[in-house]
């Protein structure tokens, strides 16, 4: 057996590693190098300017404004998504009232599970366009409903007080479904007898969720946290399609700044790469911090 092993491993590992190197690592490295130049993107001329791009960045009010929005996303999107995801998943797996002794979901669980997953099937672009129409100030679903109820109908995406929160809501909406399914699947793996035991001891559903379910789901929640934190630092597609960062930069995010600097209103590829490098380190540190903060002992069912 030993003889054939290395050629086999190498022949399986090498092609993906080479592809990864060429298409992932080398662009990363190049972005670092380009970020120290004044490259304007349409000629081979790129003079090194050292850290000048990063110094400009420190004093760029638009970048800070975008970072502030990303910070809000980072603080809210994972919390809201995970809270909603856990709530719905709990309802679907153990929310049922029927037969108080057993553990079952609410009526129609399988339908709900399917419906929650819908947004995950749609492409993000479709989601953005769909919600843009829902938020339409005059003929949108949302304002139609509000008017029918006799409530005031704001301009949503056209109002700097609301635009950013509208995008945030869509971000949570489009992510929740996936985590409902993920948490739901993880809950299925928790042995039923644990629940039955605490129920006999008279634990309420809230206590069950807090003391049993969440601790046993911790690994999954942690993974969700990291994914969502990374998604919150991006948010580019929704913002670009729904508001283009406006009105008056109120819904700007850092990815939008980078895109606009290179491909939008300017062609400053050097500066855009510097923004990209900052984004890279931010994402990396957020991921590491999230892993650290959420570290706990692993529980194994025996």
């Amino acid at each position, binding site marked *: 057996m030993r003889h054939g092993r290395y050629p086999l491993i190498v022949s399986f590992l090498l092609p993906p590693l080479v592809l990864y190197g060429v298409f992932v690592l080398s662009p990363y490295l*190049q972005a670092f190098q380009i970020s120290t130049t004044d490259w304007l993107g*349409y000629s*081979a001329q790129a003079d090194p300017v050292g850290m000048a791009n990063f110094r400009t960045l420190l004093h760029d009010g638009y970048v800070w404004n975008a970072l502030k929005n990303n910070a809000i996303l980072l603080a809210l999107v994972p919390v809201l998504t995970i809270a909603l995801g856990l709530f719905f998943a709990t309802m679907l797996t153990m929310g049922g009232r029927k037969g108080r002794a057993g553990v079952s979901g609410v009526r129609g669980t399988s339908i709900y599970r399917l419906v929650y997953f819908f947004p995950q099937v749609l492409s993000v672009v479709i989601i953005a366009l769909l919600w843009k129409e829902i938020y339409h100030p005059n003929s949108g679903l949302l304002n139609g409903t509000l008017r029918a109820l006799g409530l005031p109908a704001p301009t949503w*995406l056209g109002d700097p007080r609301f635009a950013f929160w509208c995008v945030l809501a869509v971000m949570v909406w489009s992510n929740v479904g996936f985590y409902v399914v993920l948490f739901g699947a993880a809950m299925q793996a928790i042995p039923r007898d644990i629940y039955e035991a605490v129920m006999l001891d008279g634990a309420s559903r809230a206590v069950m969720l807090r003391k049993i379910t969440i601790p046993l789901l911790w690994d999954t929640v942690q993974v969700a946290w990291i994914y969502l934190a990374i998604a919150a630092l991006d948010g580019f597609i929704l913002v670009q399609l729904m508001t283009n960062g406006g009105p008056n930069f109120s819904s700007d995010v850092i990815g939008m700044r980078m895109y606009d600097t290179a491909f939008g209103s300017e062609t400053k590829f050097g500066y855009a790469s510097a923004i990209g490098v900052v984004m890279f380190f931010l994402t990396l540190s957020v991921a590491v911090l999230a892993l650290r903060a959420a570290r706990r002992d692993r529980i194994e069912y025996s």
Partner: protein
Amino acid sequence: MNRRDILRRTAAAGLLATPAAGLLAGCATSGGGDDKGDAGTYKGTKSEQNPLGVKEDAPLEVVIFNGGFGEEYAKAHEAMYKEKYPKAEIKHSATQEINKTLQPRFVDGTPPDVVNNSGAGQIDPNGLVSQNALADLGELLAAPSLDQPGKSVKDTLLPGAVDVGSYDGKFLVMNYTYTVYGIWYSTKLFAERNWQYAKTWDEHIALCKQIKAAGIAPWTYAGQHPRYMSWPLISTAIKFGGPSVATAIDNLEPNAWKSDAMKAAADAWYQIVKDKYILDGSPGLDHKQSQTAWCQGKAAFISCGSWLESEQKDVTPAGFNMTVAPTPSLGSGDKLPFEAIRGTAGEPFIVPAKAKNVAGGLEYLRVMLSKKGAQDFTKKVASLTVVAGTTEGVELPFGLSTVVKALEASGSNGFNWVYNNYYRKLERNLVDAACGEFFSGRSTPAEFLDQCQKGADSIAQDSSIKKYKRAA
């Protein structure tokens, strides 16, 4: 110093002395070579028949922006080129993403011969100009027209056509269409209600009051691209204070946005905001949504360029008959008459400096600027070209015929500004944001002009952006 030197130095410094350096050298910015010389480019001998020196069997590559005008018109132009040079192989392609498709080829030094640099994915013209990526089209202007004997190409163009594509006196971008910017309304709606388009601002406000009383919103605008509203506002200022208002803005002069004319115009336009003459919800609409609301008769006026008619073709009700009109005069003190309207060349075509077949590219533009080429374009896409007098004998749709009339009435009083071409970011980002605040009622005229001025100052102070001067 070029990219290779950087790489060599960094590698020498041991920073990239890993196998990755080999990979790096093969990618992104390493292509091209700055001193390629004339090897590999196509050149023919110049003669009376061939003033640009086209090599008759040289292949020609044309990339078209596949937007509102489609690509059929370009295929017709290519066929005309082919007719003249049957041995030439023409490679045609069309895309909506000009910048993303072509950026690597510009870096690599192998760009196509003709590029229709237009649309949302347009390459920032300033970026191309400041990197010397564009061929000088001066030779084309001096060449004789293809089918108007005794005239040079320049002689056949409408006034202002050369200005727009000129950077520091060099003609680098050929803008093919002639676009008029004004205020649009439906002739049908106005006839039914017995309304008259107002020639002065006071009458305009009175008319707005009347329209609002009739249950229709007087105005709507593209809230997500509010710069559309900067056009009538700046036009009002220029008509009030004369063309120097525009020159000052274009040349980033200190406090150009806070000139007395701009103040008067902003104060005047603030009236439609204050009196709520704008369709509710407009700040949340994009250009298509607002134009559609206007076509549905929910609003009476909208600010747009003359592409509006073809853009709205699918949703305009029959008999709507859209008409373009100049902005109302502020008063009798206006330096320009009411008829003066903003007309400018649009739809940019470029010949990259590093194209293999520069002469062929110029010749292709000469074909486009021939009377035959221009007439064919107007017929196919219902838009004017920069070639004068090509609408004779062509049946125009209603809106376009009002554009022609407005242009004739405006005559030599027509005006334009070019800061949006020089500094794309200033209009697209900064003035845009300021207009959004102003026309949704969140800022006052003074705050609006302040915000625009701050934007202009930030461009003026940014040493990484090349500056241009517009001749007065």
